[in-house]
């Protein structure tokens, strides 16, 4: 008997996933959530095909704590985990209907009332996706460019986001954050009375609730002015992040140690770094909550994981988890652990002051950029040797980083921002790293995909930090791939070899070779370029076992550093929605270009100062490169996620293209015009 896919084994009852109605509509519930990545559409395609129905009969139900628990929607695992679970659940449902009909051709509507789905999934149900003879003839959505199911609402401006939620009797809440990290609220003095405004204070957690949103915003400003705080310096020196990250104490993560000393070849070494990076989603985080009775609270959130969020809220307040219900509502784009969960908990705390009334909390842009978790700053040392034949003969890599996950429930704490401010605050230990099985964090992609002898690869995760870091798109892979790919070009230069040829000489994986050569061919690798223009390559297989991605960047360096074009080849295994894959790769590459060229969280010793779009700029329309994506067909290889594959290779390609254009290597991100000019003036 075959094993059930992991998420189906954890939630085996079929009716939790699929419900068939007499009108022929089929409700599909999943534990994965729409984050702007199009996953709900892709999962609908999988369900339709496996059930053997038209896509239009599938109704995707937003995730909630009443539905299957699939943990977090993260790590580019949704197609693999939820897709495989849903496919098997659908196959089981179809098998039960086939049995009831006594015929593989049947009508779901006719049998809806007579087939019991409150039963466990059947591990040996035949998969229609593997043998179309086993079921209805319709259902060929997988592999086609199905349009996103959620986009019409968004393009026509219909209410759809959590921000648009208006429940009966709903009030508006705003939270007043401390003026600096670690500040403690002493008093709120001389507060001007404001009609219909409730001020909520619990320790250093401070907020307001009112019936009118604009009035609540003004009241929050008044309370901010009236609050007195005890403040102290708590943040590291932004100009000395390298030293801060190296100082420790650290957890040591051994990834590879081939146990032999480097040969007596030509030594090469270099150090690369990235700053803290903000999620900077277009919408500030939002949450709504209503206390329906003692110990009972209903929550609406754009969280990546409604079940873990519910458990974390219960833990923070000492409630029975059964009393906390969480419903997912779409928010703006989510690129990792942002402030969605925090905003939900803010709403829970504010709503406690007005039992029975729903309270919607919306963060300010400033709080979103300053108080949401950041992607960690990192620094990496590469030391290698180059043989006389021009091949790498040893490889040593050490990466220093804060942890990359502090999601709700991590390290045995709630992991919710406001829980650390209340009268009896929860601990907020430094972020941890995902397990090896989940693809690591600081050391994600620290092991190069190249054939290298005498490797020693070690991660050093910082065990304490006053700066909150957590998962952001690709986690450590962004810096690790930037460092490895930059170094490959630096080594190729010393060896006097072409960067593409040098990579291929160290890469035996045929799928890796295919994407590299496909991207190079599409970009016209090797063509002559004018003065001041450069081409650069970047390549990685995400997590060492996910999508293969190769990028060629073309940059020009006339006035500013400008990325003109990104030419990308990607292999994600079997493709569920080709245009969805292209969209994810394009978006990932553009976002990575923005991180690589401009982004850096700024702070002084007390607080984050990059808290508007002027102080935390991202690429504008005129600055965004053109992106061309080739999907390399790898036949029946299993599907892997596309959302994070381009982050590292794009950064590597841009860094290498800048070096090719100006003849000088910049190793510290971001590659701003100022940084490149400074490097040229130093003479490289």
């Amino acid at each position, binding site marked *: 008997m075959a094993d059930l896919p992991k998420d189906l084994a954890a939630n085996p009852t079929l009716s939790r996933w699929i419900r068939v109605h007499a009108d022929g509509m089929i409700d599909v519930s999943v534990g994965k959530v729409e*984050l*702007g*990545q*199009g996953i709900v559409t892709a999962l609908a395609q999988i369900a339709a095909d496996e059930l053997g129905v038209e896509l239009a009969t599938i109704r995707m139900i937003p995730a909630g704590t009443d539905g299957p628990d699939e943990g977090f929607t993260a790590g580019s695992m949704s197609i693999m985990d939820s897709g495989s679970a849903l496919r098997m659940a659908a196959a089981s449902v179809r098998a039960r209907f086939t049995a009831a009909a006594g015929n593989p051709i049947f009508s779901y509507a006719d049998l809806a009332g007579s087939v019991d789905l409150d039963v466990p999934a059947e591990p040996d149900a035949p998969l229609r996706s593997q043998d179309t003879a086993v079921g209805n003839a319709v259902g060929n959505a997988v592999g086609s460019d199905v*349009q*996103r199911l*959620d*986009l*019409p609402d*968004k*393009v*026509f*401006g*219909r*209410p759809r*986001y959590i*921000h*648009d939620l208006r429940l009966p009797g709903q009030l508006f809440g705003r939270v007043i954050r401390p003026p600096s990290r670690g500040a403690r609220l002493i008093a709120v003095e001389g507060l001007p009375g404001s009609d219909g405004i409730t001020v909520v204070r619990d320790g250093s957690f401070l907020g307001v609730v009112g019936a*009118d*949103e*604009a*009035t609540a915003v003004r009241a929050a400003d008044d309370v901010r002015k009236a609050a007195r705080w005890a403040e102290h310096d708590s943040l590291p020196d932004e100009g000395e992040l390298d030293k801060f990250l190296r100082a420790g104490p650290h957890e040591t993560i051994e990834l590879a140690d081939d146990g032999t000393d480097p040969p007596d070849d030509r030594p090469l070494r270099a150090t690369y770094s990235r700053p803290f990076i903000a999620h*900077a*989603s*277009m*919408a*500030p985080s939002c949450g709504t909550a209503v206390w329906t009775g003692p110990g009972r609270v209903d929550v609406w959130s754009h969280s990546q994981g409604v079940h873990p969020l519910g458990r974390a809220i219960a833990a923070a307040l000492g409630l029975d988890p059964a009393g906390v219900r969480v419903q997912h509502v*779409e*928010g*703006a*784009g*989510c*690129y990792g652990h942002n402030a969605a969960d925090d905003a939900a908990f803010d709403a829970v705390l504010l709503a406690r002051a007005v039992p029975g009334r729903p309270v919607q909390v*919306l963060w*300010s*842009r400033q709080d979103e950029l300053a108080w949401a978790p950041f992607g960690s700053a990192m620094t990496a040392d590469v030391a290698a040797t180059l043989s006389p034949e021009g091949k790498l003969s040893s490889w040593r890599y050490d990466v220093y980083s804060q942890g990359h996950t502090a999601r709700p429930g991590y390290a045995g704490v709630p992991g919710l921002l406001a829980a650390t401010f209340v009268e009896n605050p929860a601990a907020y230990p430094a972020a941890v790293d995902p397990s090896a099985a989940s693809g690591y964090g600081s050391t994600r992609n620290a092991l190069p995909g190249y054939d290298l002898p005498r490797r020693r690869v070690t991660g050093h995760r910082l065990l304490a930090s006053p700066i909150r870091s957590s998962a952001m798109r690709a986690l450590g892979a962004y810096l690790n791939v930037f460092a490895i790919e930059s170094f490959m070009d630096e080594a190729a230069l010393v060896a006097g070899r072409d960067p593409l040829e040098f990579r291929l000489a160290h890469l035996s994986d045929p799928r890796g070779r295919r994407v590299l050569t496909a991207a190079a061919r599409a970009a016209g690798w090797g063509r002559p370029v004018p003065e001041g223009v450069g081409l650069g390559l970047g390549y990685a297989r995400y997590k060492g076992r996910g999508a293969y991605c190769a990028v060629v960047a073309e940059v020009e360096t006339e006035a500013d550093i400008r990325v003109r074009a990104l030419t990308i080849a990607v292999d994600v295994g079997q493709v569920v929605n080709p*245009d969805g894959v292209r*969209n*994810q790769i*394009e*978006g*990932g*590459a*553009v*976002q990575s270009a*923005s991180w690589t060229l401009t982004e850096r969280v700024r702070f002084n010793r007390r607080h984050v100062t990059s808290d*508007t*779009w*002027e102080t935390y700029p*991202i*690429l*504008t*329309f*005129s600055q*965004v490169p*053109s*992106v061309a994506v080739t999907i390399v067909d790898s036949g029946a290889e299993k599907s892997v996620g596309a959302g994070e594959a381009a982050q590292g290779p794009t950064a590597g390609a841009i860094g290498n293209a800048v070096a090719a254009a100006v003849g000088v290597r910049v190793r510290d991100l971001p590659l701003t015009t100022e940084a490149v000019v400074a490097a040229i003036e130093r003479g490289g």
Partner: protein
Amino acid sequence: MVSIVVNGAPRAIDADPDTPLLYVLRNDLGLMGARFGCGLGLCGACFVQVDGVPVPSCDTPVWSLEGKSVVTIEGLTPHPVQQAFLDEQAAQCGYCVTGIIMSAAALLDRDPRPTAPTVARALDKHLCRCGAQQRMIRAVVKAGERMTAAPETGVAAGGEFDG
């Protein structure tokens, strides 16, 4: 009380005159298509047209709108640029899209056949974090081409939408 025409209908707005238009649209008039993004007019998610000009509604106080005409995405719908966005799947999370469509529609009013660089410049007041900019630029260029095509070969403006 401030008198404003919203999507063609006269409205008497009974709010503190300093209230940003965005809150009035979303909470008093039930028009949710303009989004809150930053509150400082720096991201473009809240754009509406005032007398045909795209402006950020998050930092436009209602007192400044006396006697003016406001068009929101709900009033613009259906517009060919929306269909072009769907054809190109020119969005990921979509939060920035309605503001961008308001600016794109205003651009097409004054320049019916913009080039891609012209579209990019016209949208530089808008941010998109998901990285769908090139698809959006393509969608606006194609919408312009379609709107100016001869009626027998092209799609009449607003002709094929169900809103």
